[in-house]
């Protein structure tokens, strides 16, 4: 029984772990925190494997577990959130670097509150609808809408301060 579960679980991680890890890295803003979040989630999923398998869409179920863990009380308590408030100014990196754009994007995301950042990632990276995002985050659609509006407004300012105000600046720069 355990072997069967382990085999199924391993297949699941192989099939969906990469995407989950990407989402985890985006919502936490850090590769190490993302890995830790994924590991926390997978441990929970392993312990509740029957429930995961019984879900209509197991990857979505596990993603919800992950977002739940991310927004959970323990992580809200962490000093990480305080650190974000003193994150270095954007634009400090080398604009010629191949990483400049992603650095800019990462730092801009980190300036958003965890819930706003999560809403943005779920809407525009995971491509979830507003209703699906609300379901995953355990809040109302209007709350998601509010988070997304705030996040987009902030990103416009952070990604293109003093320029034309849309999100295409960095893309154009690389063209």
């Amino acid at each position, binding site marked *: 029984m355990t072997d069967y579960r382990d085999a199924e679980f391993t297949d699941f991680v192989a099939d969906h772990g990469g995407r989950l890890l990407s989402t985890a890295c985006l919502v936490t803003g850090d590769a190490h925190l993302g890995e830790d979040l994924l590991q926390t989630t997978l441990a929970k999923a392993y312990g509740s494997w029957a429930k995961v398998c019984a879900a209509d869409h197991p990857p979505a179920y596990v993603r919800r577990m992950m977002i739940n863990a991310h927004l959970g009380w323990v992580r809200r*308590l962490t000093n990480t959130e305080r650190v974000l408030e003193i994150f270095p100014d954007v634009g400090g990196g080398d604009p010629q670097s191949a990483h400049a754009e992603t650095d800019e994007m990462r730092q801009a995301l980190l300036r958003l509150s965890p819930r706003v950042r999560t809403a943005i990632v779920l809407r525009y990276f995971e491509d979830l609808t507003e209703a699906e995002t609300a379901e995953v985050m355990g809040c109302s659609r209007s709350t998601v809408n509010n988070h997304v509006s705030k996040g987009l407004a902030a990103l416009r300012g952070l990604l293109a301060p003093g320029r034309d105000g849309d999100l295409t600046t960095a893309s154009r720069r690389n063209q």
Partner: protein
Amino acid sequence: MNDHETTVLAERLNRLADHQTPQLDVVGQVRAARERHRRQRLARIGLVGVAAATVAIVVGVTTAIGTVTASSDGEVARPTTSAPATTTTDAAPTTPPPAAEPVVPSGEPTGLPAGWEWRTFQGVKFAVPPGARIADAVDEHSEPSFMDGPSFTWNGPPLGADEYSYVEVTVREPFEGGPPPRDGDFFRPSIPGADEANGYVQTRDDDPGTGRPTVERTVAGVQFMAGGRLVGINAQFPAGPAGQQMGRALIASLSVTSPDGATETPGQEAAVPAGWEPRSFLGVTFAVPSRDTSRYPEYVDEIGPSEGPQLIWYGADLGGDVTEAVNVQVGDRSGGALTGYDGWDPVAVRGAQEAYMVIDTGHVNGVEVTELSLTAVGGERYAHFACRFQVGPEGEQMARDLIATITVN
């Protein structure tokens, strides 16, 4: 935001994800998840014992019915509504915290489930439900061996298909000095005066002797060592939640007494461990370690109308600008969804109808810490606890100690 902008944002998020996401180590993640789950499972088994023992000691002897419990698959504990009430007073959240209030009930006896009665047999004390079909049967004279020995039987009402409720206690000689080994389907209840206890509460619909199908029912069992004897308790109750609760209540009522009737456990212990201080916040009482909190005084954060206020306490430095922390949020049950139970474990919390928790290891600013998350529902209130302590067994013990001090009024 126009479509072009959203497309660009999605592209940039994808590029960022490609750039910052490390290569997934499937084997490593699977192994780590399995190991982490195993550690959590061990921690919760230990926690059940600690919580049950504390409650039993606090209320005096073995009146903490329902604190040692098991799920239908016989794995671990589940809380019940019969935890003893305490008489603390709501304290307005202030900083510094209010003066110490008694967190612990003053040893007043709490009741068994309605109609339950105590029995004592060969120094084993336990409770049986009402509704006996016939009188108790006692056999004091069987010669103890590893197969048989003196026994007591409570004969309960019929369950159908020639099955009956019963509680049977048998005292045997241990085989090769100890109880037979058990596998992972058993939990480890804490029974005052007993050693090496393991037990189960399960639902069965077959005859264990013949394997033939019969009426569905709850079966409960415990075995433990006491004074060189192997004590076995087997019981059968109706199927369903009520029957499962009866099995759990039976197990929670168990203790081993000395000939003069007193429990063999050490004397009364305070629920607030030595070196800890009580706290009370909006009707939820608990304790925190005594620390110099002058650097980061505790404070109350009013979150908003849809979520209750929270008390935040910071303790000892754990390195890397990370400190011990206890965060308690109390709110109206209707005002906040109780989520996050996936992978959480039921736990006994005084005054709570339901409580779930997880103890885990996490990282804060690169510092490895022990994290405790607990949600308890008592009446119309809920309480969330999010706490962190030092990593390792000591920190895990602190998390367990904290849980044992919580009362939701």
